[in-house]
């Protein structure tokens, strides 16, 4: 019981500290410290409750056990990471985003496509694309190619919708200005539509980082060679060694956050001019 109480008290203390910190003038250090303290306090709570209530490690292992398993399985985790993230998610992400971009430019040019393809695209974007995983495994085989294919399909439609919205985002005056310069279609695209579309494009790119990782992992549930994060998770769940599952989840969380963070960083550089980046 001492575990539970000390965990609770630590959590409350950290929460109170956070309330005080929130009252101070915001700066980058405080902005990072507060959520970090919050996350840390949750970990403490977790560790305390699991140990204090003697929760079976088969149900929910304490963070300390996960850390031990993590450091002990680095090579396996790395192999899984390369299989799922680098080969499956990343390649699918790149192909899907490029395809969506080209399609968006075509849609922007052709009124017919705009009125025909867009509603269909909007519709498909809402569908459970993940359901295509078994079909794509059947067509492309067990290895990472089918996972990349799933990622391409998952990433394509949100990226298309966002890019098309972005290409329409220039305001009337900027558009008319281009007309008065007698600009050609390509000049208009490269000098106005594309830069103006960047905030929307990056919004899509960020959303798609998470979709790519999810797509790669979940499609491995439908069939995979004996490696990969999804594969490892489903087999270790079957063996009830949940600490390994949590270790894989940690890798996935780290990879997902890093990928998202990278896109956000690039976004800051490219769309420095947008009001949302100028605060």
């Amino acid at each position: 019981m001492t575990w539970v109480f000390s965990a609770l008290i630590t959590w409350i203390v950290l929460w109170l500290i956070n309330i005080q910190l929130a009252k101070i003038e915001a700066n980058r250090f405080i902005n990072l410290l507060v959520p970090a303290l919050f996350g840390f306090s949750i970990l403490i709570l977790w560790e305390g409750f699991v140990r204090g209530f003697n929760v079976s490690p088969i149900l929910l292992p304490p963070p300390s056990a996960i850390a031990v398993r993590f450091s002990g399985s680095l090579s396996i985790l790395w192999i899984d990471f390369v299989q799922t993230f680098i080969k499956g998610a990343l390649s699918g992400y790149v192909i899907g985003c490029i395809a969506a971009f080209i399609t968006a430019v075509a849609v922007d040019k052709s009124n017919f496509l705009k009125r025909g393809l867009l509603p269909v695209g909007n519709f498909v974007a809402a569908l459970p694309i993940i359901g295509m995983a078994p079909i794509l495994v059947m067509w492309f085989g067990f290895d990472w190619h089918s996972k990349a294919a799933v990622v391409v399909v998952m990433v394509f439609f949100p990226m298309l919708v966002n890019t098309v919205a972005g290409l329409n985002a220039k305001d009337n005056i900027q558009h008319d200005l281009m007309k008065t310069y007698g600009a050609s279609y390509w000049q208009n695209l490269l000098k106005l539509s594309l830069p103006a579309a960047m905030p929307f494009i990056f919004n899509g790119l960020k959303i798609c980082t998470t979709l790519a990782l999810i797509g790669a992992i979940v499609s491995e549930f439908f069939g995979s060679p004996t490696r990969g994060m999804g594969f490892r998770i489903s087999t270790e769940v079957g063996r009830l060694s949940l600490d390994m599952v949590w270790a894989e989840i940690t890798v996935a969380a780290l990879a997902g956050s890093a990928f998202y963070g990278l896109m956000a960083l690039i976004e800051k550089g490219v769309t420095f001019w947008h009001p949302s980046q100028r605060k």
Partner: protein
Amino acid sequence: MNESVISANDLSLTFETNDGPVHALQDINLDIEKGEFVSFIGPSGCGKTTLLRVIADLETPTKGVVKVNDMSASQARMERAYGYVFQAAGLYPWRTIGGNIKLPLEIMGYDKLEQKERVTQVLELVELSGFDKKFPWQLSGGMQQRASIARALAFDADILLMDEPFGALDEIVRDHLNEQLLKLWATTKKTIGFVTHSIPEAVFLSSKIVVMSPRPGRISKIINSNLPSDRTLEIRDSKEFLDIASQVRDELRKGSSDE
């Protein structure tokens, strides 16, 4: 005898809206000669902005002919015959001021060295020297508008079309910009078409004032100004100025009482 640089013949433009047809312009006949400074003034809905946009080939007339430099409006646009200044600066936020001014130069194919020269020249003209590396949001509204005018002057076009460019600025800045615009006109000798709401501004700047009235949009009267071409702000208190201003005012009142 100056040739006509911009001419409109029986020009009409009707918009089809959900509430029925809107006669934005009806039977407009107008001649603007080289080097003139022509103001278009009138209440909302009189068609002054629409007329300017038709000259710029940003709108298509439903009837009649408009000619710019003896060509059709579209040809003139493709030949880059004019610079256009909008009510808002419309600067691209991802380009510096210098980059924004270079934009038309890049599109029209001026070489890099010439681009640089023109940017420096034109920034000097509008008294924004040294601001070429700044971004639009770092400038005040008045400065952004000046940059937008600089952009319209950067390339070789004999005509300048301006749609209420100073409307959103405060009076002091406006007066200053009015003076600068007159100096620019004297230096560059361009033909200028200028849309405004403000009677003093129209009288101060122009050699010819076109008064328009709405529903349908038409020209009520064309008033020629006999004020000397080199003017200062003090002229606004002179008798001649007030005469012309009251002519304009009377014509505007007549137009609105017709409804």
